[in-house]
């Protein structure tokens, strides 16, 4: 076999290993669906009724507004699971073992990334399914659904490659709390639940310019409204940039001296 074929085979082996972890402890998958659904119920049930009592928007219109943000939060939650799983591999020493073996070095992280992509996209599909059950009525045609899948996959890829170096860098699981907090909190200060132009001052500026907002707006446009090319371009650029930065940082960390 050629080097490339060996690399592909090693990546497939590592992906199977990660997916086996998911199947062995399905509670992780369940939680990664339940948490976003709880948030969806919280916002549509509690805050949504507050909004409609003020005469702002109907329940179904707010549900349609919130779902794209919940999709992004599902992806964010998925990336914190990925960071924890990579951190466990790194601190327990199995990555050290892999690094002493004659395998494709890239396969170690590729396996994590590919399985994280599969796991998180499944969570997102389940979350969308539940929201449709709750009354969410997307107007997207097949082509737009495909675009939704593409944008979501790109977002998950970006957040996963960002999770990898944080997972490798942290010396303990506790060391990840900063990353997890930021990635799970950032969507709240975006266009996920309230349009940024209704916010005030610096919060408004931040919400309008942070990376999650164009992704959420693009998904919202594709699912229930009119897609905007400029916003989509911003979303793709942010995701590609984050993915590249995370990948390069991860490569540096992976090649450095083992630290234990």
């Amino acid at each position: 076999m050629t080097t490339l074929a060996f690399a592909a085979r090693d990546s497939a082996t590592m992906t199977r290993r990660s997916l086996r972890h998911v199947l062995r402890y399905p509670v992780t998958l369940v939680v990664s669906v339940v948490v976003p659904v709880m948030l969806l119920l919280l916002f549509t049930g509690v805050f949504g009724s507050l909004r409609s009592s003020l005469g702002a928007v109907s329940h179904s219109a707010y549900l349609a507004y919130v779902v794209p943000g919940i999709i992004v939060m599902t992806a964010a939650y998925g990336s914190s699971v990925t960071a924890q799983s990579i951190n466990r591999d790194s601190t327990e020493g199995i990555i050290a073992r892999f690094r002493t073996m004659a395998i494709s070095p890239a396969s170690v992280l590729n396996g994590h990334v590919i399985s994280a992509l599969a796991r998180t996209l499944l969570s997102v599909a389940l979350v969308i399914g539940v929201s449709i059950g709750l009354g969410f009525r997307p107007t997207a045609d097949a082509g737009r659904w495909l675009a939704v899948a593409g944008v979501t996959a790109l977002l998950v890829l970006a957040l996963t490659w960002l999770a990898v170096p944080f997972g490798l860098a942290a010396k303990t699981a506790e060391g990840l709390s900063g990353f997890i907090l930021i990635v799970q909190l950032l969507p709240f200060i975006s266009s996920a639940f309230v349009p940024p132009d209704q916010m005030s001052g610096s919060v408004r500026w931040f919400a309008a310019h942070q990376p999650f907002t164009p992704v959420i707006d693009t998904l919202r446009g594709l699912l229930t409204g009119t897609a905007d090319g400029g916003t989509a371009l911003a979303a793709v650029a942010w995701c590609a940039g984050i993915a590249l930065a995370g990948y390069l940082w991860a490569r540096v960390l992976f090649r450095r001296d083992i630290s234990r």
Partner: protein
Amino acid sequence: MTSAITISGLRKSFGGKVVLDGIDLEVGAGTTFSLLGPNGAGKTTTVQIMSTLVRADGGEVRVAGHDVARNPAAVRAAIGVTGQFSAVDNLLTGEENLLLMADLHHLSRVRGQRRAAGLLEKFDLAEAAKKTVTTYSGGMRRRLDLAMTLVGDPRIIFLDEPTTGLDPRSRRMMWQTIRDLVADGVTIFLTTQQLDEADALADHIALLDHGTVVAAGSPEELKRGIPGAHVRLRFADVAGLDAAERALGGAFRHEDTLTLEVPSDGGATAVRALLNRLGDTADAIDGVSVHTPNLDDVFFALTGHPTTEATDDEMENVQ
């Protein structure tokens, strides 16, 4: 004799602290070599450099004929590593861990399964094969770790403190496994803190202290002339102690514990000869214990200072 490993002038510092200060080692193919030293001496760092996990600051390391810095891939293809720093996959079963290794060594499915089954049997893990590793005892986990290393049939194996923390039975099993591997022509590089382990297994020993090799040679060469081996005789009363001291001469007397320390290699022949010399006075002995030189004695004899473990602060910098 061809060399499996040659190390010359190896240096490594972590954050300004010198961990390896120019060490030279040579390990013959098919032999067992033991690097002996206390915590923080630089044993693990040496293994990590040979395993391509840590880059050296200076010096040359060749494993299986390949330079670890220039051709790490060829080194990895020749070695197997079982150590404190490497590990097993706790979320998988023992069998799945072995099959994972088989896949990574690109064995066919059938060969991989046959290899896994054989190793599970050999390492007494067949019963626990389908259980996740989190349920394993320390000894089982260590056996699985070594079994995983053997899946790829490495010709050179690094064992970083393979028996630390093991119960006596698991320790003996590990020793037997190591002897079997050497009988098959495998080269073993073993680090340990225990003199008896190096003594029992190694053809050659190097003593590492604060990043330098302070002594090297066969176990016999190293132990020769090391004081500390003695037989300790405990008596019921001072009369017995006095009588025995007169009979033996040259023994060291501990008044408070009513014991005599007699220099001896501690072997059965020597102990019997000693008791014969005592004659009837031997009846006054309450207890006999044999004290053999341990790492502390060897260290004290060779370095003039006791084994000082690096402090916790230092360890963090080092590791």
